[in-house]
């Protein structure tokens, strides 16, 4: 199994930490992982993306140009990465701020209104965990306990009291993700 993922959105949305939690979940299950950020002078509000690869085998290039899954959290990222999903692959997006919805007919598309849901949960910082939950509902990559372990490993100990609220957000994401179009 190899899963090649791009997560793309604005800085501050938790794109990089979502990728890190995915990687740590993979490490918990003995997988090979790589996490390659687009780093640069961008700050909050700028674009941010990270390429995550999870595999049972040694990972060759951590930098790739087509993906099994794209998790897209703003319009610029939609324009850039919708064309980069492999045929038959998966696109998950948050509808908030999207003016042009995905149009591809050869990929599986799911929508998750995580920004809206995070506001309802009274903690906008759970946004990325809602998205992660939705994605893991569609692609059952790990046991949930590995994800929680991964979350623990990713968070400094001073934030460990926030794990229950993040776990709740993952479950909420699993409930609210909606299928838009599927090809397989």
């Amino acid at each position, binding site marked *: 199994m190899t899963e090649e993922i791009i997560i793309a959105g604005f800085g501050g949305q938790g794109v990089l930490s979502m990728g890190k939690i995915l990687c740590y979940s993979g*490490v918990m299950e003995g997988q090979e*992982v790589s996490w390659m950020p687009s780093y640069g002078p961008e700050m909050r509000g700028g674009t941010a993306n990270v390429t995550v690869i999870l595999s049972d085998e040694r990972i*060759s290039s*951590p930098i790739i*140009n087509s993906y099994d899954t794209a998790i897209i959290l703003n319009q610029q990222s939609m324009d850039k990465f919708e064309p980069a999903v492999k045929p038959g692959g998966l696109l998950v997006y948050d509808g908030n701020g999207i003016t042009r919805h995905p149009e591809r007919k050869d990929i599986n598309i799911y929508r998750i209104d995580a920004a809206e849901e995070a506001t309802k949960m009274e903690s906008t910082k759970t946004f990325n965990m809602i998205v992660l939950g939705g994605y893991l509902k569609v692609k059952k990559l790990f046991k949930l306990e590995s994800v929680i372990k991964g979350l623990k490993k990713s968070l400094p100990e001073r934030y460990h009291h926030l794990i229950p609220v993040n776990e709740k957000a993952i479950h909420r994401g699993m409930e609210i993700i909606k299928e838009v179009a599927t090809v397989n």
Partner: protein
Amino acid sequence: MEEYVLMKGNEAIAEAAIRAGTDGYFGYPITPQSEVIEYLAAAKPHERTGMVMLQAESEVAAINMLYGGAGAGKKVMTSSSSPGISLMQEGISYIAGSELPCLLVNVVRGGPGLGTIQPSQSDYFQATKGGGHGDYNLIVLAPASVQEMADFVSLGYDLAFKYRNPAMILSDGAIGQMMEKVKFKPQQPRSKKSPDWATTGKTPDRERNIITSLDLDPARQERFNEKLQAKYKEIREKEVRYEKIQCDDAEYLFVAYGTSSRICQKSMQMAREEGIKVGLLRPITLWPFPYNEIRMMSGQLKGILSVEMSAGQMIEDVKLAVEGKVKVKHYGRMGGIIPTPDEIVKNLKQKIIGG
């Protein structure tokens, strides 16, 4: 047993430095390498092993602190990125000219000048052909994963002390910034013994140790240079390291190191799916360079694509290796752009197979 942790390449170097029993780290922050000094500051190595971690006032100061620490026989290191390493060149030449061991880390960014903060491999010439003045060489190790970023710290020290010569880890912004899982070696204690050449205070039972790179007598200076060259010859004979992947049946070859070698592995898979028999030779030591290993393959090869994130620097060594017997072309991107796997396959077809 140590378990796997997820870390950036830069952080892995810092943790490995503490575990290798480093006595002193001296550095100055610069993107894309700053996580090394940030990690060390947070990890409080003075509490763990007594290791000194000092943010110098400049790169020039840092390298001269290394010179002093190395002269006292201590395990010392610094890390920086391209413009900072350029500032250090005078000190590096002095350290080589004084035959002292130390570990240098260059997490390369695009140049020339201040250039960009994005990854590049355009410091190959500087690292492998001298950099500073005079006839000297650094031992240059090129990691291609976060695990190797960690492992090459102790390897670098071992080689540096074995040959009393500075060693450099030549990485790049991509490996510095990416996270992979990594397993560390157990903590090594800091050495309590000093090498017999170290300037640690003369005792009555021995001659004084003098550390200098200066000798105004040309005959003696020439003899010293001959001694250095004999040492470099020994390193060339004994310390070449490389990895060959799918080379047995290869008709074409990628030669690439570091980040480029990772991308080439993907290109290799893609090309082989189309029936193109291509292998990869990854130099792990860039100096000494695996000339013989490439030369020995020249009989089976129809062409070599040297892939680097530069205008083409390592390609000169690849050409020297095959002595004109095999077609060698360069493909690379510059200025902080990382080539994609399919770009490399396209260039293999255009420049080598079709060209």
